[in-house]
């Protein structure tokens, strides 16, 4: 079913999702990595901040065009790794030297014995670092989230693996349907659509 989204100025856009639900974003499709980088750059120049670009593979320069900050994941992993070193060393040293100081194979209990605790420390540091990296990527990327208003747009749902998309969210302070539509058309958007939140009733209707 097709609806037309109209604002009070009389602009018409095709609608994805349930028209009675609040407007989530205006979506646009682009045909090339060049076009989407240019569009993102233009949007940011005009002061938009709440917009997102979707690409089938990492496009160089896109994050710079959107002025996204550097990922803090490396800091998280550093923190994970350092705490892993501390956990591993205290797990090994406290029981082996303080609580149950057993002498095995005639190996000393003082600092001279430190090298024998290195392999487990290295292994645990790498393991906890990797877990932090993956968990951090998933959580910072807003995952796991199996429903997303973007999926209401069937062109996106079917074509996210081969086309380039931008969604300008309605909660941006500068958001005005007419302004955004004109802007996106000006930078060569191919398909424009008003994406509404998909309510549970509308999803069941399908």
């Amino acid at each position, binding site marked *: 079913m*097709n609806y037309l989204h109209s604002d009070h100025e009389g602009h018409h856009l095709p609608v*994805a*999702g349930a028209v009675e639900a609040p407007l989530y974003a205006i979506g646009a499709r682009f045909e090339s990595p060049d076009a989407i980088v240019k569009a993102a750059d233009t949007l940011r120049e005009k002061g938009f901040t709440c917009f997102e*670009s979707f690409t089938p593979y990492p496009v160089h320069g896109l994050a710079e065009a959107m002025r996204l900050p550097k990922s803090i994941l490396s800091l998280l992993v550093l923190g994970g790794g350092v705490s892993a070193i501390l956990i591993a060393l205290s797990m090994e040293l406290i029981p082996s030297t303080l609580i149950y100081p*057993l002498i095995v194979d005639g190996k000393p209990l003082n600092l001279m014995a430190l090298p024998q605790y290195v392999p487990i420390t290295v*292994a645990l540091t790498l393991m906890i*670092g*990797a877990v932090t990296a993956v968990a951090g990527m998933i959580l910072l990327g807003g995952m796991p989230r199996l429903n997303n208003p973007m999926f209401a747009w069937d062109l996106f749902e079917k074509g*996210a693996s081969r086309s380039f998309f931008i969604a300008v969210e309605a909660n941006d302070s500068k958001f005005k349907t007419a302004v955004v539509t004109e802007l996106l058309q000006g930078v060569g958007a191919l398909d424009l*659509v008003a994406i509404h939140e998909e309510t549970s009733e509308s999803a069941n209707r399908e």
Partner: protein
Amino acid sequence: MSASTAQISDESTLTAQSPVTSHDSGPELSAIARPPQVLNNRGPLWVTDAVCSIVEGKTPLWWIIGISISGTFAGIGGACILYMICTGVGVWGSNSPCFWAWDITNFIFWVSMAHAGSLISALLFLTRQKWSISISRSAEAMTVFAIMCAGVYPAIHIGRVWFVWFLFPVPNNYGMWPNFSSPLLWDVFAVTSYLTVSSLFWFAGMIPDLAVLRDRATTKIRKFAYGIVSLGWLGSARQWRHFEMMYVLLAGITSVLVVTVTTIVSSDCATSVVPGWHATIFPFYFMVGAVYSGSAAVLTLLLPLRLAYPQLKDLITPSHLDKVCKLLLFMGSCVGYVYVFELFTAWYSGNPFERGTFWERFTGGYSWYAITCLSINLTIPQFFWFKKVRQCLPLVFVLAILCNVGMWFERFMIVTTSLIRDFLPSSWGNFHATIVDILTATGTVGIFFTLFLLFIRFVPIVNMSELKATLPGSQPSHNPTVGGGH
């Protein structure tokens, strides 16, 4: 859900469809240009279709036959393990003085084989060897499955499996605390961490590709299953930013593991005083042997895969195979060097026990193991000096299998022939493999191939998103207004 927009036509969407427009400015010297990643100027849409069609297509007959055979072997192996647990380790041939035999041989064999996968996907990624992209996913899968096969042994070889929790640092209610200065405990942590990290690296790198399968899914079950495992990936710029950072970090972590895991495994042997084991060259010995056998395993898996799915021939090109062959040659030559050096050290040490062990190794009852191992591993890799050999794929396949066989003999030679001749002639003995030994070993091969066949059918076997990002024309041409674009 509704929309009035037109469907995306396959012809008009991606500019990257138009090939050969290199985005590098300036003239390109054809003489030093790198061979193309993907042959026949295939575009991103073709790559997606080619890779997804393997998962989405009908189940081929060879796959059903293959998994029946490998599943049978895995089942028999499982039954043998159950029998061993119910009866005791006596059903194996391991006995005094040779308490470690096929169990540890196979453990080292599998865990070593895993290393080439990590090297190809992580170390070559960090060093920006872009050619490794199209084989990295299957190499990583090989890594994960080989570690799983290796993991079968350490737990069951302790004899009383129900006491395996002694190995882990659990709260101390039972007065039980693991000896942290023992290399056997280092092993537990090294292998656990290796399995965790390589599984995470493999899975996390796959999320964008699983999302592609979700988007293309035609049935409800498929959409649901791939929807769950892809965690709601959208491919947004923010997600890619964290994803790329994660990939670099994981590649760095995995690269360290390439060196540390075999080093720790080798210290099982090297920190003891047994002649034939007590050698400082062991970490290097195990590491080069690991990458050598792993490269051979990669070739053994990739060549039939290309045959089964002809579309992969444009993705896994002769140039890729050529490079893996060269890796095999280099690592094989290092292995040969270590063999010679180990013999030299045994002689030069002047230690009669060390000399005796090596003399026994080549003249005693197990000499045919050592001779097979040396004759394969010293000669077979050297064939890869010749371009004609590297280009003749059936020959490469046969030679790669021989390398794997040679490496199994090497692991057996190291583990067993050092143990059967100790310091005191009164504690000399022999080892004879039993049928349970043999069927458990073939069982792990069955487990490996079963898992690999499942991998082929259910997940994308080539890293599509990373590959697409490197195709000509897939990145924006230089745009001075945007700054960071490159």
